[in-house]
């Protein structure tokens, strides 16, 4: 719930009425300004994405693997009426994470193995329709426990990290999920639904 101008004035008056409160209130306001934590920082007004991924050049994956990964992430989380993996630059983020994972070589190796397994399915060379069919086949054990696929583990790894990269991005968190937290609020919105008071 966003504070109204009246809420803020009321708060300021109450704060000023208490001895010593001005200092705390000043701290609060400073924090709000410095951390973009004011009334306008929620919803679509959340702060912009930092430049990290905008200018990022892949460093960890080979060019063909990166292109394949990018296509894979966009099949998993497509752009539709809300942003998808492309806007969130999920493949770029995964590459960034892997190049920063020098201290955890097991993870880097797991990703190398995953891309190798994907390549062995023919994904890299396939056209868009073929790639979609391959992802469909790889994911089958997720829905049918009797099914197996040699690239299922690769599918799971890519899906897990793509999900993280997407829903922690501005595109996923704000654009797709409309996250309302991390904002300044004058009060907490109580449940007002009679149907929630009974089971």
């Amino acid at each position, binding site marked *: *719930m966003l504070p109204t101008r009246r809420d803020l004035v009321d*708060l300021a008056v*109450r704060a000023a009425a*208490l001895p*010593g*409160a001005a*200092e*705390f*209130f000043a*701290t*609060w306001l400073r*924090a709000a300004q410095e951390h973009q*934590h004011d009334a306008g920082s929620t919803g679509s007004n959340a*702060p912009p994405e930092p430049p*990290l991924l905008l200018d990022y050049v892949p460093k960890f994956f080979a060019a063909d693997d990166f292109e394949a990964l990018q296509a894979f992430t966009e*099949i*998993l989380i*497509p752009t*539709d009426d809300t942003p*998808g993996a492309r806007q969130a630059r999920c493949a770029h983020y995964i590459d*960034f*994470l*892997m190049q*920063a*994972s020098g*201290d955890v070589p*097991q*993870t880097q190796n*797991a990703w190398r193995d995953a891309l190798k397994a994907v390549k062995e399915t023919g994904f890299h060379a396939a056209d868009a329709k073929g790639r979609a069919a391959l*992802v469909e086949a790889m*994911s089958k054990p*997720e*829905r049918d426990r009797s099914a197996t696929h040699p690239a299922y583990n690769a599918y799971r*790894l890519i*899906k*897990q*990290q793509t*999900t*993280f*990269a997407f*829903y*922690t991005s*501005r595109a996923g968190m704000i654009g*797709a*999920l409309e*996250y*309302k*937290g*991390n*904002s300044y*609020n004058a*009060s*907490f*919105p*109580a*449940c007002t639904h009679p149907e*929630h*008071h*009974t*089971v």
Partner: protein
Amino acid sequence: MATTYDAIVIGSGACGGWAAMELSKAGMKVLMLEAGSHIDPAKDFHHTFLYQMEYRGQAKPGALRRYAGSERNYRIMLDSSENPYTTGPDTVYNWGRSRVLGGRTLHWARASDRMADYEFKAASRDGYGLDWAVSYADMKPYYDRVEGFIGVSAAKEGLPQFPDGVFLPPMPLNCAETIFTAACKSLGWRSTHRRLAQLTRMHNNRPPCHYCGNCVNGCDVGAMFNTVAVTLPPALKTGNLEVRTDTVVARVRMNNENRAQGVTYIERNTMKSVDVDARYVVLAASTLENTRLMLLSAKGGLANSSDTLGHYMMDQVGGGGVTGILPKLKGGPSRLDDGKSAGISIPNFQNIDKKTARKDFIRGYVINATGGQSEYPQFAAALPGYGSEWKKEVKSRYVAQARVWIAGGEMLSQKENRVELDPEVKDRWGIPVLKIHFTHSDNDRKLIADFQEKADELFKRAGGEAMPGMGRGGPTGFPGAPGSPDVGAGGQGGGRGGRGGRGAAGGGRALGGSIHEVGTARMSASPKDGVLNSFCQTHDVPNLYVFGGNAFPSTGDKHPTLTMMALSARGCDHLIEQAKGRKA
């Protein structure tokens, strides 16, 4: 010649901050020693969105092996590579620690429940363990004092096992909590707003909560209780308090009159050893660090004529619970559900008297429940499928998330659960580290199994649908995080990943803890039975006080911090009276 202080307070967490405030307000010259660094919440805590951080709140890959925290707050956690601990062969124990001015108050869960006589005097009722050397009547004035100062938002309920206090208005319930409340009523269980040291209105010159939901990453305005914003300012205002950060205390030094002479600390960065003297020494460095200091300060342990120092370590039992969704909320609009990081509490309703006694286990537990939108949809990666339909399903469930967890499950005290000095391993400053021996009892397992039944019952009555892969924390696949290929299940200092679906309590896995470690220098009416008296003064050394969870002869089922602070307040009154009656 070195200054002799009236009191040295070691540690700046909830108890150290309180002691520094009380003693300096009483006119005593106080030196506070903090092993960690100074931090200014207004400057150092940023309400950043996950996407504004390089590692999206997870810390650099691999770093979580050293810190129990995230990219937002790991700087205020202890670096376990500098100060490790070891464990006995059968022990699985994650000791979550901070080293920073303010200690764990900077990121604690803020739950502030009073313990009741059914906990203080549990041994008299069921015959197990040792009664506390205080009663609720002894503690009530101190609970009143602490709550009145720090501010606790809560609702009065009139339940003897969940004593009411000096409360600010409670935080409103969100939709999921309202549904769980209705489910409790339907089951005949009492429930209430979680009682939190978090302001709902201006209080003692501090602004109210602004519901941003970042509490465990540090509150930049001091709306949640923490030492730096609440107890240190009035203490410093007296002019009687000196704070030295980056000082790692190595031992308490004794004189020939069986009194503490002072302490020796090592400057964290220069490695220089420094002696400081005082009339009184207050250990408030956290429960296990207090005991470590006593073990380091004399052969066989300081103030250990009872031979109980280090023994009877406990931590409230964790594990189990249910996560999933409430279908009633599915597909609804996104709402600010996690802005208060709160929930509802269901006070223990078993084993509180003869009428409610269980035959299969003793003691009890408090249940918590909450739900709704969260910062990150932890469940999403485990939800089968992909593509646009999957995205829609994620969003639909995102606002309907729900979870039931154990807030405080009593763990029975056992003498064999103990800490000792490791004979070989030392920390960065050359100080021997603790070795922890810690296992659970059958009663602990039965209690958690019973909790699991109740949690399932509550979730079902609320109409919930259990789902795997939900909970708090980051993804288990994040490089270096718990569950990733490079970190074993027993890795130290790992963050707390989410629990999924129905908990595995009673299924043979080791039970979890709650970062509520207590005991190891328990209080006792007789010096034969424990290390401390009812004022948290050691039985053996009259000018040595120990504030923290050390004194607890049992865990009870309430979160321990409020009781630790009330014990500290009581101990400070005693110390001040002692100081007045004694020549400097």
